[in-house]
């Protein structure tokens, strides 16, 4: 198996409270990998560790054959491991087009040019519009990002991430708080953009997980409880118990699956 991201004994303690505990995760290149678990299980903390927004207490992280455990977050992003945030992360007072251009500018240069007019950024417009078209936002290009409805903000976030052409994307609850219609759009989008790259996603909607993910890791109280494909994981009695014990909404979806 060609592993793109591997962690060993990844652990994060906050003042004695262990949020992530001895997690060894292996993500296969080219797969869509789901990370699920009840609220407070440590999923977001895992993302923060993987993208170096947090320093692990113990353990190591390898990405694309490189040990990234001691790196800074911007450096990890430059290697092609790019994250989204659980709380939608756009630049609210930049236009939709400018949001995408900011990412293009980083990847393609000119980000230190302080003596030039920002009109030179027009050279990235064509590419930015193409990316926006990809996520169905091209008609919104000149709106301020902060004015977009929630679902569209998530789509913009994905377009911005894609502008970096990342090797691997980490998506933290990309469909949370969305309408059915928006969820379908995001699912289709993730499936499309996952062509030729790896995706690791935190997702609460188990139907989305079932439809998208090749492999699923279940986290509870910071530990890996189970791992495998959807069918295998959903039959695991420990997983069912964990969900039944914490979140009836999800266990309902579980019964459905």
């Amino acid at each position, binding site marked *: 198996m060609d592993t793109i991201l591997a962690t060993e004994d990844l652990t994060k303690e906050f003042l004695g409270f262990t949020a992530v505990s001895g997690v060894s995760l292996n993500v296969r290149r080219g797969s869509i990998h789901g990370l699920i678990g009840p609220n407070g299980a440590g999923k977001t903390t895992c993302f923060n560790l993987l993208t170096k927004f947090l320093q692990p207490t113990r353990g190591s992280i390898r990405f694309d054959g490189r040990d990234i455990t001691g790196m800074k977050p911007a*450096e990890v992003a430059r290697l092609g491991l790019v994250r989204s945030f659980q709380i939608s992360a756009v630049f609210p*007072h930049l236009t939709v087009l*400018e949001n995408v251009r900011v990412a293009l500018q980083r990847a393609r240069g000119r980000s230190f040019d302080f003596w030039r007019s920002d009109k030179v950024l027009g050279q990235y417009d064509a590419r930015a519009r193409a990316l926006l078209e990809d996520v169905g936002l091209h008609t919104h290009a000149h709106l301020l990002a902060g004015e977009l409805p929630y679902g569209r903000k998530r789509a913009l976030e994905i377009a911005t991430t894609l502008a970096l052409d990342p090797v691997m994307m980490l998506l933290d609850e990309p469909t949370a708080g969305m309408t059915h219609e928006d969820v379908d759009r995001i699912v289709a989008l993730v499936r499309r953009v996952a062509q030729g790259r790896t995706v690791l996603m935190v997702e609460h909607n188990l139907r989305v997980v079932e439809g998208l993910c090749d492999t699923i890791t279940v986290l509870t109280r910071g530990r890996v409880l189970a791992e495998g494909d959807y069918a295998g994981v959903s039959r695991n009695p420990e997983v069912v118990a964990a969900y039944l014990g914490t979140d009836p909404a999800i266990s309902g979806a579980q019964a459905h699956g």
Partner: protein
Amino acid sequence: MAVQASALVGAPVNDAPGLLGLSGFGFNRAQSITFLVMLLLVVAGPFFLYPVLLMKLLCFALFACAFNLLIGYVGLLSFGHAMFFGTGGYLAAHAAKVWGLTPELAILVGTAFGAALGAVAGWIAIRRQGIYFAMITLALAQMVYFFYLQAPFTGGEDGIQRVPRGALFGLIDLRADMALYWVVAVIFLAGFLFISRVVHSPFGQVLKAIRENEPRAISLGYRVDDYKLLAFTLSAALAALAGSAKAIVFGIATLTDVYWTMSGEVVLMTLLGGLGTVFGPVAGAAVIVLMQNQLAELGAWVTVIQGIIFVVCVLLFRAGIMGELGRLLKVRL
């Protein structure tokens, strides 16, 4: 310190494009008109007011604009900007008097040293957030103050006096106030336009992104400290440019310009004029300098009056002169 440039946010505004190619500096129509008015005032001013007073005003206006670049567009509150202003002054004065350089070269020397000090001070300070950033800049400025107090070349309490104005490029005698005025006016206008360009450059766009959502900028691979450091250095260089010009104008460089009260004064000017507005720092500097001139005979009371203005600003006119005016006219100034 994370300060929202409140004047930039809020009610919908008329953002018609700029005039006469001024949109290249990011000016909308209202800003283009304001710029032309300012240009007119700068050109006509010396025929109505003392050129030396106006030169002082322009130097402080540039100083405030430099400070505003940092707080208004990066969100960093420096409480030690006098160290750059004063460094510019001392180095320009020394270069003109002791090294015998022509005024434009002396000003260049002052600016370069200010930029270098800015790079070092910025490198130390920018990794701190919020109030700690302000405290570190203040502490560094105090260290710089004590350095100038002790250093042999600064003349201690007396400062460097009788600095010759010299001849521009060795050709144009600047001893006449009106001759020097045009030089200072050009320096001010160039500095002002340069700042507008920085704000509306590809680099400025990254600064805006960082201010809006720093974690997101980092997650896109931006080494945000590098951008903050460059902004800090540019701001320091421009503050030093203003200080250098002031030293040439008055023929003197003293401890007053590196003292912490000078750092406070530039905060006051910027706040009074409108933080994060394009013209606010100029308006704020104009009000303070003209007021100090009018009330000079009141001595220590000037400080009290400035204190009252500061409090009134913070309590009632948070957006400052240009911020409130812009709100009234529904335009960005």
